[in-house]
């Protein structure tokens, strides 16, 4: 684990070298966090498909799917087994709260 002081120095140096973190990047990450939270909130009500989650989170379906892929890869949500044109996703145990 990094020494807090050393890390702070490194990050400060980084800010000096490259300038502050661009606002566009900050906005992008904020939008990402908001979208992911909206998806996870919507899933608290039970398993849903990508278009359903897109509607609930106010996102285009392809964007919602991409967020689902990320949340799935990093263990926040899981596939629901079953048939049908649109597969459903659910919260992974332990991620419900």
């Amino acid at each position, binding site marked *: *684990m990094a020494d807090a002081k050393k890390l702070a120095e490194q990050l400060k*140096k980084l800010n000096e070298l490259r300038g502050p973190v661009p606002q566009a990047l900050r906005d992008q*990450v904020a939008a990402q966090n908001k979208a992911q939270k909206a998806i996870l909130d919507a899933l608290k009500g039970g398993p849903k498909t990508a278009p359903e989650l897109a509607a609930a989170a106010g996102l285009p379906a392809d964007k919602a799917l991409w967020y689902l892929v990320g949340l799935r890869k990093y263990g926040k949500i899981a596939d629901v087994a079953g048939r049908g044109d649109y597969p459903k996703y659910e919260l992974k145990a332990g991620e419900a709260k």
Partner: protein
Amino acid sequence: MSYTERIEADALVVGSGIAGLQAALDLADQGYSVAIVEKAPSIGGKMISLSKVFPTLDCASCITTPRMASVSHHPRIRTLTYSTVDAIKREGGTFTAAVTRKPRYIDEKECISCKRCEEVCPVYLPDEYEQGLGAKKTISIPFTNAIPQLPVMHPEHCIRCGACARTCPKDCIEFLQEPAPVEIKAKAVILATGYETTPMTAKKQYGLGELPNVISPMAAERLLAPHGPYGRVLRPSDGKVPGSIAYVQCAGSRDKSIGVPYCSRVCCMYAIKQAILLSGSLPVADITIYYMDIRAFGKGYEQFYNNARAMGINFVKAKVARVTEDADHNPVVRIERQEGTSAPEEVKHDLVVLAQGLVPGCDVSKFGLGAGLNDFGFVQLSDETVSSAVTAGAGVFAAGVVKGPRDIPDSVMDAGSAAMEAASYIRKL
């Protein structure tokens, strides 16, 4: 130039796809020392990202990972990944390559590949390994089977929150890391820089890459791969299981309008293979291949094609004039049949794969090695009826797709001859 490291080897292999790996192994197994330089963060090239490979339907990982492991464990092979060859100079019988190791922003010696940095990083990015369909983090290990298992940080996407550094058990995050110049001296060079696919944006009639459900064959490979982005076959626009999938053949080959008049050799076969795999994972789906000529010319290929037809895959002799989409992003393919009826038709599918062709992965003329190129940027051999590897540059040999499109069996079969030519050249120095 002050180099951080100097490496001496008998041969320098540029590129670590299947041809580069095989050429390196075939040299090292004869007792020669080899240095490999690979621009990607992992060795394995294009092949490691494929699902299964024709005509045997082995999983691509099953064939590639052992080669990758052999190279990484080989006592006579040194591999530099995430590194670029900036220049190669030849003096007498010695090549001197200036190589830059790009910063991963971690201490490569200390990292234990625990992935904790990746887990805590809050920024998600499109994953190019998954052809943009999947997500990764700003700091992440490229993929499950990557060698080496080291994360790469993308500083342009980093919000400098410091979470990775705080969680790393080995304290090996280095935000201030710089590129490291390395010098490699070698007696021979093997170019194995492979290919890229023709760009999705190449053809206006096929949607310029802007239609979400018109995808590249590499994306289709990822959809079919065991650890693909969705874990199953879905279409990118809305996560629907596609019920109808079409392949547009020669979407980036045999086409003078995009500067690729040649046949790319692999597209018929990868389309047939993907169609077979798709019909395995989606048994009720309709799969159509629109084609001009099916070129199943290799060993076992015609039989593979016949099997696909017997499985019910629909082969339609037709030219595809245009691909558009309807309001629900369903691709609409306008075809002119070459068989049956001549009237143009519009056919709606759920997902369309454009069979893109192959173009050179690297402009090797920038190395100034004297290896001539043909009109399309592939390496031209001195006399291909005498040797399949000797270029016009003394001590410079070529392996695999750098000489022109070829499939995996042909590339593997080709790599050994490049190793052999390099070996006899070195021996006679």
